[in-house]
């Protein structure tokens, strides 16, 4: 005798059959194949509200970072409270709002000075946004955002960070254009990576200075997605105006700069992807009592990434980065923000050749739980060299090697353990070692 299947199985049968048989679309109702501009793979067919305003969500994040560097501990703890309304774009004018305020505790211990503790507060984000379909022309999308937000250019060689300003994007299927302008001087320097002039470097280590270097920034990018064979092309420019002035009326160094760049990326073969970028910088430095000097620098980036194994659990990344130094042929390439090259490597990007090999594996990549799939083990090694040197031996700045374990077992908790060692080359200094623990919780 054949027994009846369980109700859940019968339910699943009905579900599968009804979902695989397309229903005729009624007039005015989008069928399953309708894709609204900007809609994701799980779009609702319901227009949620006529105004494009969404629900308000709120929460808090706690991020903790603990370092032990050559026996000296340091800690950074960030608490942020956020409020946001970011409805999904579904083809009607859509408005968003994000507010994020944070308190930061930075504590450092050195044998010479003992504990140095600072408590800081800042606005991490405060922005309004709007998405407007069929603007400026039918079939296009116009996006606008204003306030404090993150901005960057696609090469990673020039600028990435927070800015107070306004930006807009015009999108069509063949071209995406973005324009952003703003100011960095109202942002807390602990939340900023801007470092251009000698004065900026001095202020970074001065605890009496709270704000980031004052810079007016303008960014413009034109992107052609899927140009040929899924290759993308981006070109654009950045301008930076130094707004620094001395309250005492003394003259100080100011550095203005303009950049142009070209970036391409895409697949080279199955499982192999690349990024390539070229940038030029026009730097004008005005030292007190001296005439402004100009120099032209160049920078480049070449990165390859290879995915292997079931579920792409293995990833190998090889990256080469170049920033010109002062020589007969070139000037210094001075980026607006300091690149992140490693746990200990803090070179600014000028007069630098950096080569890094990174390997990571996700041993549980086939797990049904995303938390298990998130477990990632990584190791890397890099070499930093001077771009301008008499010979190869004297160009070696140092080598860094490190390892990381990253996991986010559940939606609201994650962590990373890192360790690295830096071994100087021709430059003076002893080897440095650091261990780091990062934890993050979300409420």
């Amino acid at each position, binding site marked *: 005798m054949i027994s009846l299947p369980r109700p859940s199985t*019968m339910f699943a049968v009905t579900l599968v*059959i009804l979902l695989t048989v397309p229903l005729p679309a009624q007039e005015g109702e989008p069928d399953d194949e309708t894709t609204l501009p900007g809609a994701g793979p799980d*779009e609702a067919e319901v227009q*949620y509200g006529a105004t494009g305003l969404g629900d308000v969500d709120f929460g808090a994040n706690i991020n903790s970072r603990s370092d032990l560097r050559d026996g000296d501990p340091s800690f950074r703890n960030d608490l942020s409270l956020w409020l946001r309304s970011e409805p999904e774009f579904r083809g009607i004018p859509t408005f968003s709002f994000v507010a994020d305020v944070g308190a930061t505790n930075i504590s450092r211990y050195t044998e010479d000075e003992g504990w140095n503790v600072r408590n800081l507060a800042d606005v991490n984000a405060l922005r309004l946004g709007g998405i407007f379909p069929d603007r400026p022309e039918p079939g296009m999308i116009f996006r606008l955002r204003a306030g404090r937000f993150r901005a960057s250019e696609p090469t990673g060689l020039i600028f990435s960070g927070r800015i107070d300003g306004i930006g807009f994007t015009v999108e069509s299927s063949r071209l995406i254009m973005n324009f952003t302008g703003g100011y960095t001087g109202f942002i807390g320097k602990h939340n900023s990576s801007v470092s251009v002039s000698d004065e900026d470097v001095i202020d970074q280590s001065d605890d009496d200075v709270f704000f980031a270097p004052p810079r007016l920034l303008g960014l413009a990018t034109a992107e052609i997605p899927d140009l040929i064979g899924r290759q993308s092309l981006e070109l654009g420019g950045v301008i930076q105006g130094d707004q620094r002035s001395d309250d005492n009326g003394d003259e100080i160094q100011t550095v203005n700069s303009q950049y142009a760049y070209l970036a391409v990326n895409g697949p080279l073969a199955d499982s192999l992807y690349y990024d390539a970028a070229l940038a030029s910088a026009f730097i004008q430095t005005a030292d007190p009592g001296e005439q402004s000097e100009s120099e032209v620098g160049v920078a480049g980036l070449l990165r390859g990434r290879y995915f292997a194994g079931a579920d792409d659990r293995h990833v190998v990344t090889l990256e080469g980065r170049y920033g010109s130094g002062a020589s007969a042929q070139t000037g210094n390439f001075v980026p607006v923000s300091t690149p992140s090259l490693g746990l200990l490597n803090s070179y600014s990007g000028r007069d630098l050749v950096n080569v890094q090999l990174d390997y990571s594996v996700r041993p549980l990549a086939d797990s049904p739980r995303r938390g298990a799939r998130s477990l990632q083990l990584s190791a890397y090694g890099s070499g930093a060299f001077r771009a301008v040197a008499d010979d190869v031996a004297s160009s070696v700045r140092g080598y860094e090697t490190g390892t990381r374990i990253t996991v*986010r077992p559940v939606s609201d908790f994650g962590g990373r353990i890192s360790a690295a060692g830096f071994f100087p080359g021709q430059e003076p200094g002893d080897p440095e070692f650091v261990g780091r623990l990062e934890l993050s919780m979300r409420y």
Partner: protein
Amino acid sequence: MQCFLFSRSTLLSEKNCVNIRSGMPQRKHRAILSFVVALLLLSLPSMGQSAERIDEYLERQRLDVAQAAYLAAASASLIPADSGAEQALDALSERGFEMRQESLQADVRLDEFSFMLMLAHDLPGGFMYALFPGPRYAYRDLRYERIIEGGGDPGEPVSGRRAMRLVGRAMDFSEEVDG
């Protein structure tokens, strides 16, 4: 600009990169489909009532609380397929669901429906869901596990079709987690 699976510069990024390479485990949809089609042929006479109700739900732009509760409870075998909304809500209430809306005919919110699915299928959640089980963290956990895909608000209504997709993914996920 392409995004890659893992960004070295962020630890917990809220903004998911578009996966140019799928890192998701293979679902056993084809095997399940074959199995259930076979069961359908054997059990066709019993399917009529359930199919009619689900057919009606599929055409709805917004499910109400009663319909959503039925879908969640029936898909987890908490109630027979021919049960009513009251039985569905009772079954969910035994697992911790609290009716927060004034009427069973009110539009169900996406976070409410998420909570129903979490309770009905006994899906694992994060720390906050364990401490404070409810729609807020149920929604976040289902988004994290990509049962809820794409964007959206926690308070938005749920269409019949979207509800069916969510139920299917929740059932799939529950089966995979249980091994």
